[in-house]
């Protein structure tokens, strides 16, 4: 019987099979940030087990609240910083070099095909874009991962979403994943891995694949995953060129982690995206989705462009294309957070930051910030944000606030209009 991507990765990483469908797997990387890791560190210290399984496989960043906003967040950073020094962890990204975890770790080449990765962050599923099994976990799983380099999972059942058709101009990866979540629901992939396949995925950049996989967890999925191909190899080449004599040989090795033709899926969904319109959420759940055209005119107070979903260079380019030469509406305020220092520099070199600033955007340092209402753009009660992030939960961006999720192009166009609207990049379905 053939295997899915996740089954192949599990087969090559199995450490133990303690009972039933529970499999303990070896971890290739454990990612850490300052919100969920300090309590794990403190617990390890209390237990007299302040050590790590392999300092080279632990990657650490301060990203959620940076620069620290108060004594408590400063202490979270300090606990992480001191621990990294104590345990000889070299890949520690502190302020000045830090960015949103799911943007900076791929940029550094830490996510590879066939890898197993955990992090105390639900959007760890992003790294599945590289053909990795990457799952968000809680602090206890993280603690055991740090200490032992293993994690227990139910054997992963996979569902396949095969994406075909021709995407209209002005319709992006974000619109695809929002529409998929709208179709299958926030509980539609619970305990499953979603394999994204088909010609639309095959022609996507790694950035776009990361946007798709990033939101797999919003449908309940353990991980979203794309089979590695030459686009994956090209993205990683600077980091792997000493390991392989050529890109072709790297691809051949990575093909081990493509699904078999006779792999068995719990469900296969065929999805033709021809004619798909830009999408937006309207409620407090990420599956409450409709076309932007049905929400046009909806009042907003703030626009936020950034996050692990849509804070990458392509996202800033799309938004800047819409904003070029324009001003945001006087009735709103707008914030852009390039997701990493490299993206920030690139955007500066390309003149994108000037376009944002000329339009009236506040450009912040790389941080998760406003996405979860921790800093850098919290909403007041009753306020509404047009946002490129991934969650519209009640209170997510501040108590009593409302978030509408959308693509960077739609967010930029909405900033100019002062209300939700389609961007000029979208010329109608089939356009």
């Amino acid at each position: 019987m053939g295997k899915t991507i996740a089954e192949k990765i599990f087969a090559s990483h199995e450490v133990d099979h303690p009972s039933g469908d529970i499999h303990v797997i070896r971890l290739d990387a454990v990612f850490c940030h300052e919100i969920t890791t300090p309590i794990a560190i403190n617990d390890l210290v209390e237990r007299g087990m302040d050590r790590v399984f392999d300092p080279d496989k632990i990657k650490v960043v301060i990203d959620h609240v940076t620069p620290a906003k108060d004594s408590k967040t400063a202490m979270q950073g300090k606990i992480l910083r001191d621990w990294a020094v104590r345990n000889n962890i070299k890949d520690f990204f502190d302020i000045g070099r830090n960015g949103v975890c799911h943007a900076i770790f791929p940029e550094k080449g830490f996510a590879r095909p066939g890898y197993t990765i955990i992090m105390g962050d639900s959007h760890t599923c992003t790294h599945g874009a590289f053909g990795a099994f990457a799952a968000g976990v809680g602090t206890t799983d993280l603690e055991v991962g740090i200490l032992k380099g293993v994690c227990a999972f139910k054997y992963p059942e996979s569902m396949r979403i095969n994406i075909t058709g021709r995407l209209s101009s002005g319709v992006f990866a974000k619109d695809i994943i929002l529409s998929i979540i709208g179709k299958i629901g926030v509980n539609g992939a619970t305990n499953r891995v979603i394999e994204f396949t088909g010609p639309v995925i095959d022609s996507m950049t790694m950035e776009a694949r990361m946007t798709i996989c990033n939101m797999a967890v919003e449908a309940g999925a353990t991980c979203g995953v794309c089979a590695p191909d030459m686009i994956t190899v090209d993205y990683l080449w600077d980091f792997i060129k000493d390991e392989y004599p050529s890109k072709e040989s790297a691809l051949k090795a990575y093909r081990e982690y493509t699904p078999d033709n006779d792999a068995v899926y719990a469900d296969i969904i065929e999805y033709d995206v021809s004619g798909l319109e830009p999408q937006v959420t309207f409620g407090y759940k990420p599956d409450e989705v409709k076309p932007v055209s049905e929400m046009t005119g909806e009042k907003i107070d703030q626009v936020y462009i950034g996050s692990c979903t849509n804070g990458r260079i392509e996202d800033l380019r799309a938004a800047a294309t819409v904003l070029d030469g324009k001003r945001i509406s006087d009735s709103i305020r707008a914030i852009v957070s390039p997701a990493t220092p490299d993206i920030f520099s690139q955007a500066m070199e390309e003149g994108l930051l000037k376009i944002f600033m000329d339009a009236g955007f506040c450009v912040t340092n790389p941080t998760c910030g406003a996405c979860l209402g921790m800093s850098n753009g919290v909403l007041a009660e009753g306020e509404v944000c047009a946002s490129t992030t991934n969650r519209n939960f009640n209170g997510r961006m501040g108590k009593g606030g409302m978030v509408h999720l959308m693509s960077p192009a739609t967010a930029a166009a909405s900033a100019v209009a002062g209300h939700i609207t389609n961007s000029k990049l979208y010329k109608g379905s089939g356009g």
Partner: protein
Amino acid sequence: MKNFSGNVLFLDRSDINTDEIIPAKYLTEISKEALKPFLLEDLKLDGFEHPRDIQDKSVIITRANFGCGSSREHAPWALEVNGINMVIAENFARIFRQNIFNCGMIAAELPADTINRMFSSFSDVETSVQTDLKKNMFTISGNDKTEEIPFSISDFDRSLVEAGGWVGYADKHY
């Protein structure tokens, strides 16, 4: 082992997410106890009043996909420090469910019709649950009604509950 019996809090909604269970602004706390006053502070549910409705409750009975969203273990911790160590639902989000057992708590999954029956028989009256983990069942009672309800728990999850969590188990085995 923790206590898995006591008064029931009924939450009649699916997809209650971790931001509702404990809002992100409290994730700057580095002690579990500090989360106590904020459990379910942002819950969007008609008739629910925070914090009145969580006083003296030990068990939650709710609908589907409880705990979806963030991976924050602060969600089970916020329940734990309020004395709630057991949640009964149609199903749970994966990370939340794993976090619950990793903390030595119980997430019991029951069919939708059993959940419906408990809501229709008990959600309007003061209700309590007595859990017998050895027999894989709990007794739910309120007013004059009592019902015995079996639930399943995997051997692995049971060993986590008995070991008081995953760190103790993993340290012994790996």
